[in-house]
């Protein structure tokens, strides 16, 4: 999974990174399995309890100590200036991270005076806060994005001739760039040759002549160079627009197939559910809500992995691949931990007991409120963002 899906083109050379990532992933999955076992009542109660504890310890250890340290280490080793004292700087970065981590806990009502500094509850609470924020942001965005992508209502009508017209414009722009660059190259070459001839002319007049001629030459050059820069910018924009149109056209075709229609229907369904969630209407039967939340979580995890894959694929380079993998592991770990916390919200009462027992005394209601707030905020802002983007695109289209 790791090698194939995430890094088709680049080799991740450090084994440590791979190990860390796999460990994180494995333990996260184990956590989910445990939850499912909870519900189904498989395995004996005490062994479940033991596994929970073990799992949690390991995950927290990894998330809080190991991963940030390695991230700091790799980021620092990428900055060439600090190459010498890598270890020292990495430790510094790590301490800064720990400091902010503690500070994060202060504004929130999660400290309980009964527990010591390094207890499990403290750590979980902090990880939970970060994870919950992240999850709310992502799911808010996903809730809005999902119907937008799937519903054919939003797809603009793109015809083949539009695409062809754009492509022709792109090629014309490229031709103009080429001809201008040829002029630059020729002028430069002439200047160079003339410069050689000029060098042979000694004396006062020769020097003045050479100065003036090169000046006009270079003025011309800079003018043309500016035009070329503008044209190149234009060509980039045209290229991106063409890609956009092609993508839209393909989406239209896809929506006409059976699979497309199926996803379309799902899209409608989820959009209704998401709208419901946004406006926080309570009261639904517990079991159904649990199933729905389960589905949403699964799809959101899948969406998360896909989005992250695309994102990292786009920005990955051989230098930062290690950092990216570690960041991915970190995010994933936090995401999983907080989704466990949140699933408690939707689970029927009898299952909550063991979870509460393991996780200690945490203010769960706080998390729920926090999640809803962030979710609302991110959903609204992404609606706004998409609306603006949607508005802008047809205007650009008209201007062509």
């Amino acid at each position, binding site marked *: 999974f790791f090698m194939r899906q995430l890094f088709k083109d680049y080799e991740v050379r450090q084994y440590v990174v791979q190990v860390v990532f796999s460990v994180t992933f494995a333990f996260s999955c184990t956590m989910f399995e445990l939850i499912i076992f909870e519900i189904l009542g498989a395995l004996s109660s005490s062994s479940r309890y033991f596994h929970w504890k073990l799992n949690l310890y390991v995950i927290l250890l990894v998330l809080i100590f190991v991963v940030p340290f390695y991230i700091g280490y790799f980021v620092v080793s990428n900055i060439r200036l600090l190459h010498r004292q890598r270890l020292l700087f990495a430790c510094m970065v790590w301490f800064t991270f720990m400091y902010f981590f503690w500070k994060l806990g202060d504004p929130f009502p999660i400290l309980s005076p009964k527990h010591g500094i390094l207890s499990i509850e403290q750590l979980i609470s902090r990880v939970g806060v970060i994870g919950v924020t992240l999850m709310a942001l992502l799911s808010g965005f996903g809730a809005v994005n999902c119907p937008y992508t799937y519903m054919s209502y939003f797809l603009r009508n793109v015809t083949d001739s539009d695409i062809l017209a754009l492509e022709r414009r792109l090629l014309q722009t490229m031709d103009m760039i080429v001809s201008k660059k*040829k002029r630059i190259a*020729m002028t430069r070459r002439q200047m160079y040759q003339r410069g050689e001839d000029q060098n042979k002319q000694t004396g006062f007049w020769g020097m003045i002549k050479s100065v003036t001629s090169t000046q006009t030459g270079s003025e011309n050059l800079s003018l043309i160079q500016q035009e070329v820069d503008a044209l190149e910018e234009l060509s*980039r924009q045209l290229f991106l627009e063409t890609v956009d149109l092609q993508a839209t056209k393909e989406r239209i075709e896809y929506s006409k197939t059976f699979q497309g229609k199926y996803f379309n229907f799902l899209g409608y369904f989820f959009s209704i559910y998401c709208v419901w969630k946004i406006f926080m209407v309570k009261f639904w039967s517990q079991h159904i809500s649990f199933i729905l939340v389960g589905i949403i979580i699964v799809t959101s995890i899948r969406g998360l992995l896909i989005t992250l894959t695309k994102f990292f694929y786009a920005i990955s380079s051989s230098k930062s691949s290690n950092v990216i993998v570690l960041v991915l592991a970190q995010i994933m770990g936090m995401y999983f931990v907080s989704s466990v916390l949140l699933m408690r919200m939707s689970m029927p009462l009898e299952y909550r007991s063991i979870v509460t027992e393991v996780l200690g005394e945490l203010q769960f209601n706080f998390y729920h409120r926090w999640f809803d707030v962030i979710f609302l905020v991110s959903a609204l802002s992404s609606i706004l963002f998409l609306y603006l983007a949607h508005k802008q695109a047809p205007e650009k289209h008209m201007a062509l």
Partner: protein
Amino acid sequence: MASLDRVKVLVLGDSGVGKSSLVHLLCQNQVLGNPSWTVGCSVDVRVQDYKEGTPEEKTFYIELWDVGGSVGSASSVKSTRAVFYNSVNGIILVHDLTNKKSSQNLYRWSLEALNKDSSPTGVIVSNGSDYDREQFAENPVPLLLIGTKFDQIPENKRNEVLNRTAFLSEDFNAEEINLDCTNPRYLAAGTSNAVKLSRFFDKVIEKRYFTRDPSQVSFVSSVSLI
């Protein structure tokens, strides 16, 4: 400038292998100071003296089209890229010597470029990553294989890397050059690399101009201004 007089060479390869640096080095004879992502396609022009040193010397402008992106891009990006592959006279395949996968992807790159460019009489049938050696043997388009980041390979691994690339160049039936785009000394006049480069460009020009059938427009000097 009339479109009949163009000599177009594509520069293909994965993201980050150093195509833009290479093109800059070839055209401006200077090292690129701030490499950044190539969006779409960037073109640069190289002044090439065909048959340098002989009485038939003529100056040509070779356009190097540096196409950005990767083989695994979305099909929308691929179909937009295909616009650039028209009427190509030569292809430079660039791969990163420190990254094996970039050289494996070159097969797919060449297929992508050549399939688009197939003449109406010959349709090249291929499925995905398969390639056919015979296809490249009688390929009308000259190829050049360039491996970058040569300086980043430690001394002890150099031999095995060079072996690998030798196999590659055999597969493509192409010349190969291994260099470091941040060091112009690899392409300094008189080195074997520079000779190979000149030979490649001369071959491209020759194929473009001198092997046309006489029914087409006769050869006009290409130094005419716009």
